[in-house]
C-alpha cells in the first residue's frame, strides 16, 4: 500500500441484507493528512462507507485497509485498537443526553486515559474553545441547539487528537453562518492537528471550498468522478455537472423506480377497455 494512503477500500461489496446491495465493488483511496469529501445523493452508501471504515459492519466481500492493516469487524481487540486512532462526528451528534456539554467532551478522556482531572479540565475547555463553545461548558444537552450539538460532538470527536476524523453530514440542518464556521473549522483542525479528514456530505459548495480531494458517488457506491474541487467544477460529464450545479434534469433521476404512472392510476389499456 502507498505510504501516502491512510485508508484503502479495495473492491468492497456490502448490503444490510441479501436483497439490497448498498455498495457494489467499490474501490477508493483516502490520502493521509488531506481533507477528502465524498459527495453523493441520499441513500448512495456514503454513511455505510464510514461504518465500514469504523468496523461497525464487515464487508460482504473485499477489503477495508486502515494504515496497512486490514479491518476485521469480527476481531474486537483489533477494532478497539484501531478505533482509538479515529474520531467520528455523527450526523445528529450522538451526544450523551444524561451528561453536560463539559462531561460529553470529557467522556473519551476519562474513559480512555489516566489523565488527572485538572488536565482533563484544561483539554476539555481548549477543545470547546476551538469550536467556540467554551462558554456553554456547563449547559445540559437539552439546552443546546442542533448546530451547537454538532459542534460539541466535534469537540468530543477531536478530544483525543485522532489521526482520522470522519464527518457524517457535518453541514446538514445548519444555518448559513454555522455552515461556514463548521467548514472552516474542519479545514483548520485538519491543518493544525495534521489529521486525515473524511467528510461525507451532499453540500457541494462547502465541501468544494475545504477539500483537497472530492469523490462523487452515486447509487450502489458507483464512483462517478473524483479529483480536486477545481477539476470536478470544470468537468463536462453530464452527471457531475448535474450534481455540482444541483440541476433537476439530467442523468440522475429524481423519481424512485416505479411502474408506469398510467398503470398506478388505473389508466392503462386494460382499464380503458373495461370502461
Amino acid at each position, binding site marked *: 500500500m502507498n505510504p501516502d494512503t491512510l485508508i484503502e477500500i479495495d473492491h468492497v461489496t456490502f448490503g444490510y441484507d441479501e436483497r439490497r446491495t448498498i455498495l457494489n465493488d467499490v474501490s477508493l483511496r483516502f490520502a493521509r493528512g488531506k481533507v477528502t469529501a465524498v459527495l453523493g445523493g441520499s441513500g448512495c452508501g456514503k454513511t455505510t462507507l464510514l461504518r465500514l471504515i*469504523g468496523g*461497525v459492519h464487515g464487508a460482504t466481500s473485499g477489503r477495508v485497509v486502515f494504515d496497512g492493516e486490514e479491518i476485521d469487524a469480527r476481531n*474486537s481487540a483489533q*477494532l*478497539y*485498537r484501531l*478505533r*482509538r486512532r*479515529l*474520531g*467520528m462526528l*455523527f450526523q*445528529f451528534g*450522538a*451526544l*450523551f*443526553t444524561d451528561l453536560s456539554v463539559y462531561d460529553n467532551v470529557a*467522556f*473519551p478522556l476519562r*474513559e*480512555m486515559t489516566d489523565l488527572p482531572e485538572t488536565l482533563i479540565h484544561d483539554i476539555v475547555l481548549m477543545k470547546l474553545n476551538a469550536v467556540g463553545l467554551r462558554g456553554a461548558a456547563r449547559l445540559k444537552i437539552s439546552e443546546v441547539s442542533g448546530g451547537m450539538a454538532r459542534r460539541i460532538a466535534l469537540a468530543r470527536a477531536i478530544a483525543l487528537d485522532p489521526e482520522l476524523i470522519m464527518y457524517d453530514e457535518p453541514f446538514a440542518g445548519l444555518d448559513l453562518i454555522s455552515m461556514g464556521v463548521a467548514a472552516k473549522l474542519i479545514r483548520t483542525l485538519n491543518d493544525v492537528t495534521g489529521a486525515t479528514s473524511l467528510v461525507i456530505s451532499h453540500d457541494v459548495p462547502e465541501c468544494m471550498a475545504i477539500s483537497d480531494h472530492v469523490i462523487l458517488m452515486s447509487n450502489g457506491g458507483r464512483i462517478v468522478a473524483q479529483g480536486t474541487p477545481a477539476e470536478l467544477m470544470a468537468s463536462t460529464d453530464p452527471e457531475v455537472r448535474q450534481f455540482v450545479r444541483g440541476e433537476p434534469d439530467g442523468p440522475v433521476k429524481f423519481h424512485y423506480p416505479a411502474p408506469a404512472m398510467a398503470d398506478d392510476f388505473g389508466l392503462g389499456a386494460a382499464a380503458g377497455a373495461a370502461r
Partner: protein
Amino acid sequence: MNAIAALGARTLRVLQGWGHAALFFLGLLRVLPQSLRRFGLVVVQMHAIGNRSLLIILASGLAVGFVLALQLYNTLITFGAAESLGLVVNLTLVRELGPVVTALLFAGRAGTSLTAEIGLMKAGEQLAAMELMAIDPRARVLAPRFLAGILSMPLLAALFSAIGILGAWLVGVGLIGLDGGNFWSIQQNGVDVWRDVANGIIKSAVFGVICTFVALYQGYETEATPEGVAYATTRTVVLSSLAVLGMDFILTALMFSTR
C-alpha cells in the same frame, strides 16, 4: 409441506433467539468484573434503579401486609390459631410474596425504564458513538446497570417484607387487638434465618438477574424506532413477569420441598 417448513423456520428462529440471548448473557458476565472495579457507576445506577423504586415498593408492601393480616386472621380464627398470624404473615412475605411481588413491580417500574433508556440510547446512536470511541457499551453502560439491578432487588424485597410485616402488625395488633408480644415472639421462634430468610434473599437475587437481564437485552436489541422501543418495553414486562413466576415455582420446589 409448507406448514411443516413454516413450523421448522419458526422453531429455528426461536432457537436462534435463545442462542443469541445466551451469548449476550455470557458477554455481559465477561465484562462484569470491570463494573466491580468502577463501583461508582454501579452506585449511581443503584440510586436510579433502586432508590426511585422505593415508593412503589413500600406502598405495595404496606398494602399487602394490611390485606394479608385481615384475610389470614379470618381464616386462622376458625381453627383457633389467630395468635400465629405474625408467623404466617412473616413466612408468606419472606419466602414468597416479598421476592415475587417485588420482582413484578421492579419489572414494571425499573425494567421498563432500563429498556427505554438503552433503546433510546441506541436510537440516538449513543451506543454506536461509544463503540467508535473504542469503549465497549456493554462494559460502560450495561454491566453497571446489571450489577445494580442484582444488588437492588434483594434490598427492595427485604424492605417490602419488612414494611409488610409492619402493616400486618398495625392491623393484627393495632386494629384487631392481638397480643403484640406474641406477634413478634412467634416469628422469632418460627422463622429460620437460613431456610427462610436466606432462601428468600437468594430468590430475589435470581429474580434480579432475570428482570435486569431481560430489560437490558430488550433495550439493546430493540429496533431503533419509536415503535421498536415501545414494543421492547412491553416485552420486558411480559417476559420478566413470566420468567419470574416460572422460576419461582422451580426455586420453591428446590428450596422448600419437604421430601
